[in-house]
Structures are given as structure tokens and as C-alpha cells.
């Protein structure tokens, strides 16, 4: 019996290691962002509402914002839109849109039809800014603090659960810190 003790123990250890790996592995297809706790990538892009104006990260500095990457070609973004309107109504954090590889006219009519939850929308035609932010599939949302640090990234749809469990607590922490 004794000579089997070690192999069985090793096998049990392997089972435990693999079980932990399976349990804690992120959702299939989700890539952890290396941007968390790092300065948000800079950009300076034309605004969707008025192409002569620019939207830039330097003017966004000094306050919290939620950067939402979307496109009128993106189906999940349509599903997400209602939640974004909720966020706007809550008034807790301004939404900054990044219209990714989209047609301006279609993007404008999208906002006209579904409602515009964004304080401002930056237009990223060639997708370079999206690459700087490590975006790989819309929608994605980044919570950025007043120091310009990315504190959270939501991959995929911003659901009420994500809002309550991930974003609200981080925003409330800020209020606790300032009061």
C-alpha cells in the first residue's frame, strides 16, 4: 500500500491544481487587461457631434469618467444601450464614447434613434486609439479616475450586475475618500 501512497498523493495534488485552474479561469475568451492601475492611453480625436472639435484625454483629466467603446455595427452595443441610458440618468459618472471604426452618419442616426447617453463621443476611424486601449471586441468599458488611471475594465456588455458589483463600489469609494 505504501508504495502507492506517493503516486496517489501526487495525482490528488494534480487534481486540486487543475480544479483550481478551471474554477478561477476567466470566462472563455476574456483577456485580462494589462492597463488596470496604469495611466489611461492618451488620445485626441474629433468629436462625433462636431468634427471641428476634438475630444482629448487631457481635458478629461481631473474627474472620473467611463469610456465606452462602441460602434453602430455592433449588435451587443444595441443591447447594452439601455443600460448606458440608465447610467446617464443616474448622473454618477459621465460616459465618454469611443466610436470605433464606424461610419459617422450611421453613428449619429444610432444616437438619434436610441438616445444619446454620452457626454461626448470621440471618433476612432482607423482603430488606432482602440488598439492603444487594448480593445479587441466591442463593447468594452473602462473606468478612469481623476488621476487618469484605469481602475476597471468591463469586457462585453455593461450589465446592471457589472454596474452594481464592479463600478458602483469603486465610485462610492471615491466619495468616501473625498468626504
Amino acid at each position: 500500500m505504501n508504495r502507492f501512497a506517493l503516486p496517489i498523493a501526487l495525482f490528488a495534488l494534480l487534481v486540486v491544481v487543475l480544479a483550481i485552474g478551471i474554477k478561477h479561469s476567466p470566462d472563455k475568451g476574456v483577456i485580462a487587461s494589462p492597463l488596470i492601475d496604469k495611466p489611461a492611453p492618451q488620445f485626441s480625436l474629433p468629436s462625433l457631434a462636431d468634427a471641428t472639435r476634438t475630444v482629448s484625454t487631457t481635458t478629461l483629466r481631473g474627474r472620473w469618467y467611463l469610456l465606452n467603446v462602441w460602434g453602430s455595427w455592433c449588435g451587443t452595443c444595441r443591447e447594452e444601450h439601455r443600460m448606458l441610458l440608465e447610467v446617464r440618468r443616474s448622473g454618477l459618472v459621465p460616459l465618454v464614447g469611443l466610436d470605433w471604426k464606424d461610419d459617422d452618419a450611421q453613428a449619429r442616426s444610432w444616437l438619434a434613434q436610441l438616445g444619446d447617453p454620452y457626454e461626448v463621443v470621440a471618433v476612432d476611424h482607423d482603430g488606432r486609439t482602440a488598439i492603444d486601449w487594448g480593445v479587441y471586441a466591442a463593447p468594452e468599458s473602462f473606468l478612469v479616475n481623476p488621476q487618469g488611471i484605469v481602475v476597471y475594465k468591463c469586457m462585453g456588455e455593461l450589465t446592471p450586475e457589472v454596474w452594481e458589483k464592479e463600478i458602483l463600489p469603486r465610485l462610492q469609494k471615491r466619495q468616501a475618500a473625498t468626504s
Partner: protein
Amino acid sequence: MRRDLIDVQTAPRPGRYRALVVGAILLAGLVVGAKVYAVDPTQLPDPKLQERYLALTHELRCVQCQNEAIADSPAGIASDLRREVRDMLLAGKSDEDVRNFMLARYGDFVLFRPRFAPKTAWVWLTPGILLLIGALVSWRIVRARSALVPLDTEPLEEDLSR
């Protein structure tokens, strides 16, 4: 004769050749088709750059269609990332610059061959450690058994019968 019988039985029937020919044509299609269906038409002016470009786009993983290299993927983001690689190479950046650019944005995931870093060390070290454990175990078994040889002093039955 026995030989003839065997030959008759294993002689290929006409149908077998047909399967072979069809198989060969399909295989040839795979080889030729691979070039026809290549997603990436990029051609850099300098063959040296082109070679580096191909190597890099094959070692960078597409972030959307996650088991393909960006060289093979038709996804929009893959072609955007190829464009970044091309532009960086044309701007005289090194392969390492390109890798670091991708790492900073997409993390270790983008490299099919992960770097050796504190976070990824176990990926590289575990196989070696397991091999070492295996070698140690087999060495101990061999040593234990070879220690038995001098103890086995009884003559063989064969020798006794002489």
C-alpha cells in the same frame, strides 16, 4: 503455392487506386490552396523586413479569434494589428519593440510563445521540474534494483544440471 495465394488476396483492386488519386488531388489542393486563401496580402519593399513581418505576424495571437495568429485571421482587429506591425517595421522599430507594443496593450496573451517573467515562469519551469522528478524516480528504481544483483548468488538451474 502459398505465396501466390497471398499475392492474389492483397493485390489492389481498381477502386483502391481511385481513392489514392483522389486523396493526392485533395492533398495537393491543401498545399496550393493555402496560398490562394492567405488573408494577408501585405508585401513589404525589403525582403528582410518582409521576413520579419511574417515571423512576427505568425507569433502574435489574434485577440478576437483566439487560436489563430494575426497573420491567419480575417478579423478586423487582426488586420489592424498587422497594420501596426507593418508600420512599426517600416519605421525601423525592432522585433522586440513590436512585441512590447502588443504586450503593453493586450498582455501576455498575445504572444504564442510567452516571455519568461515572474508571472509566466511556471509555464516554462513546470515541464523541466516534472522531467527532473521523473528522472530522479527512475534513477532510484534502477539503483535499488542493481543493488540486488550481488545478492543474487544462487546458481541458475541450468548451471546446476551441468
